[in-house]
């Protein structure tokens, strides 16, 4: 039996970063908002207290903060002619779960995309000609520009207190920042974090090679900060337990440390945790959402009517819910038609481990934060001439070593036995004098006709819903890009004086067991043409105008940066359109 609940103005599906931002913006507009979150409520002292949060086994190895595959999982295959199988332990990415979503466990690297990233196809075609792009590459423009998003990037950075050094203030290039970034209207709210020894050494070597190193913009704060909502954050303690962990010191930007304290005080906001939305309901025309159906943790089913539906779950859950709710045309890669599931992407990550003379270099790798690091951007986006190289895309690279946690950060030189006395000796010798940046080369991944999401024909979850099927492989363009970037990256470690440098290239086939990042993108992309996009430039569904779809599912392809800054900027951009246009005149904001 389904219990019908009293109607609300807005129902929000998923209370992570974008759900919290939309809840804040729409409650401010006076609307009555309910957020429905699949996972548990989480708060700092109860769920990630600093006297037990630093537990690598519990959180990193056993994935405590993440969705458990028993609850739901995905099937995976590399090629369309293969049979996909269910993922039984998370590998290449980590699906978030619970209040705060990915905003709890992220590293808080708070980048903006390059202005040219938003017009990828137009820009690359103009510079290199249409023939330069591989024929099956399906990249496209976003329908929104950097200049339009700038105020919204700014808003998110000031919400979070982001620590960084501006590289481009209103068109003026600034010393010490990233000279390639788009113009920003004001400096970062707090100065960049202090950099540990190895990061400083990397910056010095990079500068000597002619690059312009800059500190990674960080949501782990260099100093105490009070945001515009009067929520207070503390300074980062450099404990080195950020990614995979919640922050116990109120110093990592998350919904918990920036928005939720204000939201929970509002009489027009309600949150239901441990409730999973199973369907977005539409009326008989299929053109209007009437609300959502969800189940609680006991399996009781509820219907929540609402005038406006905000889909703000993680990328792949957004796509899955659209497919299960039969909203939009599912993507068909053979006919090259349909949009839901199209242009799915991830990231192209590689790394370089380097080994230094232990009598001269003591790096103390455990002094770190999730977004610490010195980076260069010379090889990102279209910051360099791709003409001679035969590929497009790129990424930032840097000594962004975020921890010295013992289980996973124990590099040994190539050729060392995997176990035994010789391994122990090498591990002991290398711990303080070897470098292992987490995502050293942070490459883009562009979209292709045969990389997509659809519903699996065989496997079903505990609620008898078809699992989402991932079809994903690396293409030659990304492999070439990665080889070029990884070689450039290794040169810097050589210049730092490493006695041995070990390059770990990213190669095909795409390996679902090897962690890259959790930056899954696309599948419900934004754009200007309903034939090739699921949502318009305001993240409004082309098919169901009272449904807005937040998150990286809207990225037509992924750039060479961490996505959260752009995800949040798009959420503020969409919220502004809802407040200033949609609420006055509910209906399509863009005519197809």
């Amino acid at each position, binding site marked *: 039996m389904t219990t019908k609940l009293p109607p609300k103005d807005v129902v929000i599906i998923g209370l992570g970063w974008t759900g919290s931002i939309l809840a804040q913006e729409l409650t401010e507009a006076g609307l009555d908002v309910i957020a429905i979150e699949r996972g548990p409520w989480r708060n700092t*002292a109860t769920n990630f*207290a600093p006297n037990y949060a630093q537990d690598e086994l519990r959180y990193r190895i056993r994935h405590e903060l993440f969705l458990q595959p028993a609850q739901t999982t995905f099937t995976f295959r590399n090629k369309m002619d293969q049979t996909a199988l269910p993922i039984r332990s998370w590998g290449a990415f980590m699906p978030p779960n619970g209040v705060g979503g990915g905003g709890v466990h992220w590293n808080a690297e708070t980048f903006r995309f390059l202005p040219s990233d938003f017009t990828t196809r137009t820009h690359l075609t103009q510079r290199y000609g249409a023939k330069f792009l591989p024929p099956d590459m399906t990249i496209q423009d976003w329908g929104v520009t950097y200049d339009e998003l700038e105020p919204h990037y700014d808003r998110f950075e000031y919400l979070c207190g982001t620590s960084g050094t501006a590289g481009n203030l209103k068109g003026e290039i600034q010393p010490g920042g990233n000279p390639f970034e788009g113009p920003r209207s004001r400096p970062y709210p707090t100065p960049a974090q202090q950099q540990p020894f190895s990061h400083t050494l990397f910056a010095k070597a990079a500068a000597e090679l002619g690059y312009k190193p800059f500190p990674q913009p960080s949501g782990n704060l260099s100093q105490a900060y009070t945001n515009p909502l*009067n929520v207070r954050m503390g300074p980062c303690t450099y404990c080195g337990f950020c990614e995979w962990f919640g922050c116990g010191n109120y110093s990592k930007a998350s919904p918990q440390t920036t928005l939720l304290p204000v939201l929970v005080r509002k009489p027009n906001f309600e949150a239901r945790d441990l409730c999973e939305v199973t369907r977005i309901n539409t009326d008989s025309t299929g053109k209007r959402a009437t609300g959502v159906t969800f189940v609680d943790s006991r399996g009781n089913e509820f219907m929540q009517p609402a005038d406006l539906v905000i889909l703000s779950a993680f990328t792949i859950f957004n796509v899955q819910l659209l497919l299960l709710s039969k909203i939009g045309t599912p993507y068909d890669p053979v006919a090259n038609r349909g949009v839901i599931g199209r242009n799915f992407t991830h990231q192209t990550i590689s790394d370089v481990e380097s080994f230094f003379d232990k009598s001269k270099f003591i790096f103390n790798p455990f002094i770190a934060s999730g977004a610490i690091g010195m980076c260069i951007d010379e090889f990102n986006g279209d910051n360099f001439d791709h003409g001679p190289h035969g590929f497009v895309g790129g990424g930032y690279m840097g000594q962004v070593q975020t921890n010295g946690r013992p289980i996973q950060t124990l590099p040994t030189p190539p050729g060392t036995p995997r176990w035994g006395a010789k391994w122990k000796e090498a591990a002991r010798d290398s711990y303080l004098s070897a470098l292992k940046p987490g995502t050293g080369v942070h490459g883009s991944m562009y979209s292709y006709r045969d990389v997509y999401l659809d519903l699996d024909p065989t496997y079903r979850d505990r609620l008898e819903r078809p699992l989402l099927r991932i079809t994903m492989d690396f293409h030659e363009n990304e492999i070439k890009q990665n080889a070029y970037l990884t070689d450039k990256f290794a040169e810097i470690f050589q210049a730092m004086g490493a006695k041995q440098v070990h390059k770990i290239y990213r190669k095909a086939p795409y390996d679902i067991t090897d962690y890259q990042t959790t930056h899954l993108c696309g599948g419900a992309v934004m754009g200007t043409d309903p034939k090739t996009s699921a949502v318009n430039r305001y993240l409004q569904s082309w098919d169901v105008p009272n449904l807005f779809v937040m998150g990286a599912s809207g990225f037509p392809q992924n750039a060479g940066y961490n996505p959260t800054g752009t995800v949040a900027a798009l959420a503020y951009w969409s919220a502004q359109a809802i407040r200033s246009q949609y609420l006055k005149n509910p209906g399509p904001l863009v005519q197809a």
Partner: protein
Amino acid sequence: MRSGAAVLSTLLALGCARGATFGASDQQNFAQIENGRYLTLLADCAACHAGVDGTPFAGGRPIQTPFGVLEAPNITPDGATGIGHWSDAQFDAAVREGRRPDGSRAYPAMPYPYYTKMSRSDVLAIRAYLNSVAPVHNTVVANQLPFPYKIRSLMRFWDALYFTPGQYRPDASQSAVWNRGAYLIEGPGHCGACHTPKSWFGGDELKHAYRGYALQGWFAPDITDDDATGLGRWSQKDILEYLKGGHNRFSAAAGPMGEEVMDSSSQLDDADLAAIAEYLKHQPGTAEHDRPLAASDPVVTAGAAIYADICSGCHKADGSGVPYLFPDIAHAPSVASRDPATLIRVVLQGANTVATNQEPTGPQMPAFGWQLSDAQVAAVATYIRNSWTHAAAAVSEHDVRSTRQALALER
């Protein structure tokens, strides 16, 4: 959320309330009702007179006293179980003299020794406001004290010893702001009920007024102008911010004071909070202070190591914390209170600091009781109490063990 049963009982109560006298208040006199609402906040009537489920003024919430458990009566205008049938004179006598309509005595958990300083018109404004809230049918058995305290008539002797009836008389030699502060604190605010030391019989020891008192497992700290253990280092702005937002650059409100901030002082006018600050800054401290233990004391040394390991991440190596987020325990006087109950409790159990509109963050301190032994808690508490600006008696393992046992009983 209200249950269906509570709504039903309210509807029944509405029926029962018909024909109640309600006193003489005029339910169209909105100025009086609004004044009464504000005075009710100021007197924090809701803190004790809440229902078990939180229903305002329905009564029944247990109040722990050193003499046993009391339940505050239902003060909604319900005719059968509340105060709907009371006359205004009966209401005034209960509030200002601790006399119930049947002539029996109230216990001074009802702070009539303070409320007596209010004017009759203030009390009748409170009555007018209470008449405007929804009547709730809820029978409360107020007196659950053990013998001999359950004998209400004994309160005659208590009144003779400790109760001085009479309205507040302004002191012409002081400013209007001081006098307003004095009225608020001595009268409806009843700050001394928690913060003034008590005799064996629970009467205020007025010569030590506002120098702190242990109750409900917490130590309500010294709020005199004492530099070492009181508010001497706090400016009036610091006091105002604390009462309004629950946080200032030194300290944060948690536990019973957190409730007070949430239910009462955060909702008061800034002018009244400034008057309270003015009056508190005129309360003299004591001349007798402890001397600090030597840094070389082995317990202090052990405590310093524990502090560096588990406390300094938030409170900083120098104890300075982060203003409005993590208390500055180098300067927060309450950690050096003569009674370490609050410090021990907070280390063992953690603390939920209050969140307010002014300061919505509401940071929480995690519990360390599962991690530290009694000796370790004693050492770190002793270190904190004898570092930076502080000098206070060592905390013993026995103190920690007793607090642990008391906290286990609270659960």
